[in-house]
């Protein structure tokens, strides 16, 4: 991950001066009309529009594939139904929605404070060498494939929770708690690196002024610097939320995947889990129901994206992740 310092208030669009024909230096040979020039301009525009086309196509095909089942089953029974039993054509996904929300919320609530504290450590308190080493390890944490996390979770986290459940008298295979803990580890790198760059971008005089007024180092950090970086930190939290809600393979391996209403120490099935789990043997309305789950997830993700985009625009935040 490139960790170059972000430049505050960089010009967002329009490129450098000299990009537009009006800004072309006087005396430059104007060959903008040459066929090659026009062709390249068009070609580059096409490349840029590919991303827009991809998003449009995705939106269209998510709705086209996921819409029919919601129309057939009915939006109420589909979104609010409590029974997911494909064999009896029962397609209620409320338990999964609630499980996904619980897991995501739980993970963000734990990872956010932890991430902010580590980000403060990295940005302000750590000796440079230790900070560099820790950053390298956090980057590594961000790069570990989610299936590997699933494997680690199944062998390290799940057994520990199983022991706790045994003590409490209800041992089950997988639990919401295991999913939350695994998601915490998975979204920590995102939250830490976004928060760190936000904290770093707070002008030093803010902190100096607080120190000069007699506050301690920690007071200046937590009462001045961190609040000043809050829009960036919030963006990191939203980004982490998106990651957590969309994670599939890792949580499948620890959550137990029973489509029942979520409780902390009971198995849960997240929205994302049904799709890979039942994909291979699903057909007909069952497959359509999986598309419907995809559409539901897509709507959640789009809401998160729009919130994030709004925050980036408003807060001048840049995400180096």
């Amino acid at each position: 991950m490139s960790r170059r310092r972000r430049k505050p208030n960089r010009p967002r669009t329009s490129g450098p001066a000299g990009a537009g024909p009006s800004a072309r230096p006087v005396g430059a040979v104007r060959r903008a009309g040459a066929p090659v020039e026009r062709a390249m301009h068009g070609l580059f525009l096409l490349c840029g529009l590919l991303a827009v086309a991809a998003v449009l196509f995705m939106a269209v095909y998510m709705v086209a594939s996921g819409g029919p089942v919601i129309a057939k089953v009915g939006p109420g029974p589909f979104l609010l139904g409590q029974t997911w039993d494909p064999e009896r054509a029962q397609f209620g996904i409320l338990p999964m929605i609630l499980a996904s929300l619980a897991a995501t919320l739980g993970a963000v609530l734990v990872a956010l404070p932890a991430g902010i504290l580590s980000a403060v450590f990295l940005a302000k308190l750590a000796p440079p060498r230790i900070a560099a080493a820790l950053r390298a390890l956090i980057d590594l944490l961000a790069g570990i494939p989610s299936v590997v996390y699933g494997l680690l979770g199944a062998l390290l986290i799940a057994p520990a929770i199983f022991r706790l459940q045994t003590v409490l008298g209800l041992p089950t295979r997988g639990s919401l708690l295991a999913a939350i803990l695994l998601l915490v580890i998975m979204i920590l790198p995102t939250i830490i690196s976004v928060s760190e760059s936000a904290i770093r971008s707070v002008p030093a005089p803010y902190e100096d002024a607080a120190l000069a007024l007699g506050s301690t180092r920690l007071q200046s950090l937590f009462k001045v610097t961190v609040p000043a970086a809050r829009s960036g930190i919030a963006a990191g939290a939203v980004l982490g939320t998106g990651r957590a809600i969309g994670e599939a393979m890792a949580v499948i391996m620890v959550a137990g995947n029973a489509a029942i209403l979520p409780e902390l120490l009971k198995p849960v099935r997240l929205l994302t889990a049904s799709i890979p789990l039942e994909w291979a043997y699903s057909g007909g309305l069952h497959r359509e129901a999986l598309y419907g789950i995809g559409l539901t997830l897509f709507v959640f993700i789009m809401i998160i994206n729009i919130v994030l985009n709004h925050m980036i625009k408003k807060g001048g935040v840049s995400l180096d992740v």
Partner: protein
Amino acid sequence: MSEPAGIGPITVKKRRGGETALYGLIYLLSAGILVMVLYFVIYILTRGIPAVTPAFLTTAPNPIEKTVGIFPSLVNTLYIIFFSLLIAVPFGVGGAIYLNEYAKHRRLTALIEFAAGVLSGIPSILYGIFGYVFFCLLLDLKVSLLAGVLTLTIMVLPIILRTTQEALRTVPVSYREGALGLGAAKWHMIRTLLLPCSLKGVLAGVILSIGRMVSESAALLLVAGGSAMYMPAGSLFDQLASSGSTLSVELYRYAYSRGDNETAFGIAAVLLFIVITLNILTRLVARRLTATGH
């Protein structure tokens, strides 16, 4: 406190209990993360490395002789990476050039940047559904490596776009003005000046993209499917048109469907090795980027 507040070095101020606790928490937490990552790495390597033998890396699984090998999925991973980059790099770089050098309409630029942001926020399982409906069914590519390539192309496009854009921004405006002032046409200026200058940014994007594709499992499970049981055979096109799984997908199968943790850890060790290598490369490229300082 012997000195009046506000005079003398602030650091000698007596810490209150709450502050000490907060310091303790911060250090403990940071140390905890450090220890956790190291523990994960050591755990994966100690459990995985025994499984990684030359035969493991160079053969296909053989159910009769009960040996496992990951060569087919290794090859599938390389195919997916190579062909996705083959498409994503030109489009990503081209898009970045458009945004940075040509775009005049703020709205259009904002739209493209928004779209790229949306693409990078969409979870891979949704790429899987889209890829299946669009590439496998609509374009009739079936469940195949080719469908996997096209799906992952869209997935890594925003990464290449963003890193190239960042690199282009670091090229001073005076370079462009100089080239244009000497009479270079715009495309000539881009080809001979901007592209070489932003090469390292593109490289950073390529490395990040490889990391993303190596880790990818959910989408490929749906669009490329298949298990990697046989040694690659037939023409390149035949191979791309058939289904097959990459390392991460195989890891999922071994760990979750077959309950074979030893093989799963072997694959995990291989994946970790790849990820660590990519991280080191990223660092080297980033250092070079700042060292040459344009």
